[in-house]
C-alpha cells in the first residue's frame, strides 16, 4: 500500500465551492487522472481519501491538504503531473509526497495561517492595539447556533483561539492582517468571527478578501 499526501490550492471563483463538493471533485480528478486509488469494501465502495479541516465558503487557499491511499506506489512528481493535467487552474496540486504518518491530517494540523486584506482607512496602530488585547487579555464573544427551536450559545475567548495577529498597511493603502488560528478537532475560531469583532470595535471596512496560506503542525511547520 502507498499513501500520498498533497497540498493543493483553491482560488478564484472556486472559493464558492463547498467542502463536500471539493471532496467529490478531487476524487473524480483522481479517477480522471488514471491513478489507481484504493476503495472501501462493501455495497457502496468509496475511494479512500481523507481531508483537512473544511475551508469556509468564500475563502481562497494555497494551503489545503488531502491524502489518498493507492493500490500501487507512484512517484510524487508523476502524481502531481497527472493530477494537474485534469484539474482547473484555480485548483492545482502544489506539492505531494509519500506519507508514512499514521495520524490524520486533521490531527496533525494545529494552526491555520491566514492573510486577510481589508479595504479600510482605519488606523493600523489602533487595530494592532486591539489585536494585542485579543492575544494577551482575551476578548470574549458568543457563538450562537440554532438547534431545533433552541438557540445554543457558546462562549469563546480569543486568547485560547489565536496564536498570532498583526496588521500592516499595504501599498494600496489597505490593511493586511496576518493571523494564526489555533485549530483543534473540537473546533476553532472562524475568520468571519474575527472580522465581526474588528467591525464591532468600530473599524469600518467595505470589502475584504481572505486567503488561507497554510496549515501548520505542532512545530509550526507546514504539513508539507
Amino acid at each position, binding site marked *: 500500500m502507498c499513501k500520498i499526501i498533497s497540498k493543493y490550492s483553491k482560488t*478564484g*471563483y*472556486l472559493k*464558492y*465551492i*463547498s467542502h463536500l*463538493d*471539493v471532496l467529490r*471533485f478531487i*476524487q*473524480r*480528478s*483522481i*479517477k*480522471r487522472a488514471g491513478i489507481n486509488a484504493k*476503495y472501501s469494501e462493501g*455495497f*457502496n*465502495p468509496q475511494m479512500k481519501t481523507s481531508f483537512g479541516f473544511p475551508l469556509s*465558503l*468564500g475563502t481562497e487557499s494555497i494551503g489545503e491538504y488531502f491524502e489518498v491511499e493507492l493500490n500501487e506506489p507512484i512517484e510524487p512528481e508523476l502524481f502531481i503531473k497527472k493530477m494537474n493535467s*485534469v*484539474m*482547473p487552474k*484555480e485548483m492545482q496540486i502544489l506539492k505531494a509526497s509519500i506519507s508514512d504518518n499514521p495520524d490524520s491530517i486533521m490531527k496533525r494540523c494545529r494552526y491555520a495561517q491566514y492573510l486577510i486584506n481589508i479595504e479600510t482607512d482605519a488606523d493600523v496602530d489602533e487595530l494592532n492595539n486591539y489585536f494585542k488585547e485579543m492575544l494577551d487579555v482575551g476578548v470574549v464573544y458568543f457563538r450562537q447556533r440554532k438547534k431545533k427551536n433552541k438557540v445554543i450559545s457558546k462562549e469563546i475567548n480569543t486568547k485560547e483561539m489565536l496564536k498570532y495577529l498583526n496588521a500592516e498597511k499595504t501599498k494600496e493603502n489597505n490593511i493586511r492582517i496576518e493571523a494564526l488560528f489555533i485549530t483543534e478537532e473540537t473546533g476553532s475560531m472562524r475568520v468571519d468571527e474575527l472580522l465581526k469583532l474588528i467591525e464591532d470595535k468600530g473599524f469600518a471596512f467595505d*470589502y475584504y478578501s481572505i486567503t488561507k496560506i497554510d496549515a501548520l503542525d505542532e512545530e509550526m511547520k507546514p504539513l508539507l
Partner: protein
Amino acid sequence: MIDVKKLDRELLKVEKPARYVGSELNSVVKDKDIDIRFAFAFPDIYEVGMSHTGMHILYHLMNSMENVWCERVFAPWTDMEEIMRKNNIPLYGLESKDELSAFDFIGFTLQYEMSYTNVLNMLELGGIPIKSKDRGDNMPLVIAGGPCAYNPEPLYEVIDLFTIGETEELLPELLNLYNEEKKKGYNKLRFLEKAAQLEGVYVPQFYEEVYKVDGTIKERKVLNNNAKEIITKRIIRDLNKSYYPEKSILPYIDVVHDRVVLELFRGCTRGCRFCQAGMVYRPVREREYSTLLEQAESLLESTGHNEISLTSLSSGDYSCLPDLTLKLLEKYESKNVNISLPSLRLDSMTFDIIEKLQEVRKSGLTFAPEAGTQRMRDVINKNLTEEQILGPVETAFNLGWSTVKLYFMIGLPGETMEDVLGIKELAYKIKDKFFQRPKEKIKGNLKINVSASCFVPKPFTPFQWVAQDNMDEFYEKARTLRSEIKDKKISFSYHEPKLSYLEAVFARGDRRLSKALIKAWEKGCRFDGWQDMFDFDKWMEAFEETGVDPDFFALRERELTEVLPWDFINIGVTKEYLLKEYEKALSLTTTDDCRLQCTNCGINYKLLGGACPHVQNNK
C-alpha cells in the same frame, strides 16, 4: 462586464453560490474579441439546466466553431434575483461575466411550458426588453427551440426567431448567416428575412393570426414575402455523423443527473397516443454500437463520472442493447462505473440485462403502465397487457426487488371512475404477487409507490383535439384513489391538477395567451414548475385582467376541422394519421409497433429524416 467585486460581496448571502460563478472543468473561455457571442439560456436553475444533455451538445457544438463563443446562463433562484435587483447586477453569462445585453444571441431552450415566465424574467434581468418589437439592431437576437417550440405561438411577442426540430445542423447555418450579415452591416429585419428562408426557422412577426367570432382561428396570414407558409421541422439524418461532444462540463455542485449520458437513438416506434415525443421525433434513428462505445470512452475520461446512462425514449428497443450493455460492463465494471437504463419497458429480454446491471445494488424498479385498465391502455395504445405487467413484476420480486414505483395518468380520454379504480386494482394485484410466493422466497419489505399525473393533451398527438378533465374531476379522481388505497404497503401521490391545467392552457395555446403570460410575470410569477413557488391565484388574476379565458384552451374539445395554432408546422407525421389514430382510440383499437408493420404515419412522404428504417416491413 458586470461589477464582479460587487457580485463577490453579495454571493455569500445566497444559497449555493457555485450556481453563479462558472469556472467548471471543460467549460469554455475564449477571447472576447470574437465574431459571435451566444448565450445558451436555460430557463430554470443551474442544477436542472446542467442535467440537460441537449445543452451540453449544443454548447460544445457552437464552441467548436472558431468564430463563436457560446456561454451559459440559468435562471437565478429568488434569493439571487433579489440581490441582483437590489444591487443593479444584470444577469450575465457564466463564463465571461458579461451582461446578457452584450451578446449577439440569447438562445432559450423550451423544455416545459411552465418555464415561460422565467424566460421573461431572465431577459429583463439581463437588461433586454422582453418584446421582440422593442429590441432594435443594437440588442441581442432572442431565439428559442426545444420541444415546446412545436407550439411557439404563446411566446410570439417575445421571441424573434424559433428553430423547429433538431438544431445540430440548423444552428451553425444560422450563425454563419448572421456573421455574413454582420460583416455587411447588421440590420435585424434583413437578417430575419434571410433566416426565414432557412428550413426549420419560424419568425412570428412575419405572420398574423385571424380569429372567428367564436374565438377559433380563421386563418393565418403571411405578412412577409420571405416567410414560408409551412415550416418543416429539421431533423438529423445520420446520428452517427452528427456532432456529439467528447467532453462535457463537470459541475462542482450536485446536479439532478450527474452522469455520462449516451443517446442510443432518437424517435420511438411504439406510438403511444398521449406522447408528443413519440410523434415529433420520428423516424427512429439509431446510433451505431461502435459510435456509442467511443463516446462513452471519451466522456468518462473527461469527466470521471461514476455512471453511464443509456437514454432514449424507450431504451429497450435499441437493437444492440444486450451487446452494448455487456461490452460496457466488461470495460468499466472494474473501474467502479455503474450503468443505468432509464425508460425501459420490462420484458423477459431486458431482465437479463437489468439483473446484470444491478448485481450490486437492488434499487427500486419503476414501471409505467400509464393506465389501470386494459380498456384505457388500449385507448392510449400502450400495447401492454396485464400479464405483461404482472409477469415482469413477479420476476423482479423473485430476483430480490421489493420496492416498486408505478406511474399512471388520470384524466385520459374516455376514462370512467372504474378505469381510475383500475389503478388501485393493479397495485393490489402487484402486492398479491409479492405475498403469493413460498414463504422462504419472500424477502425484504414490500413498498409500492403509486403516482398519478394529470393528463395534459399535447399538440401533434392523436389527442390534440380532446378536452382536458377539469380540476374538479381531477381532484375527485385523485381523492377517490387516495381514500380507496388503504394498504400500508402501498402509497399514493398525485400531481397538482392546477399545474397540469395551466400546462394544458399553454401547450395548446395561441397568440392571445401572450398578454396573460406577461401579466402573470409582472405579478411576480416565476418558477411555476416548482410546487412551492407556483401561485395559481396570481395566474387566474392575470387571465382575468387580460380578458383571456384559459378554459377555452384547456377544457374545450376541438372540432376536427378546426385550424389549430400549430397546424403551420410540418413534423412529417401527417394530420390525417393523427386523426386516424384518434378515431382508433375512440373505438378501443390498438396500433402495432411500427417495427412490426408500417403504420403509414407519413414520415416517409418527403423523407425528412431519410428513409424510415421500418418502412420495408410494409405489406
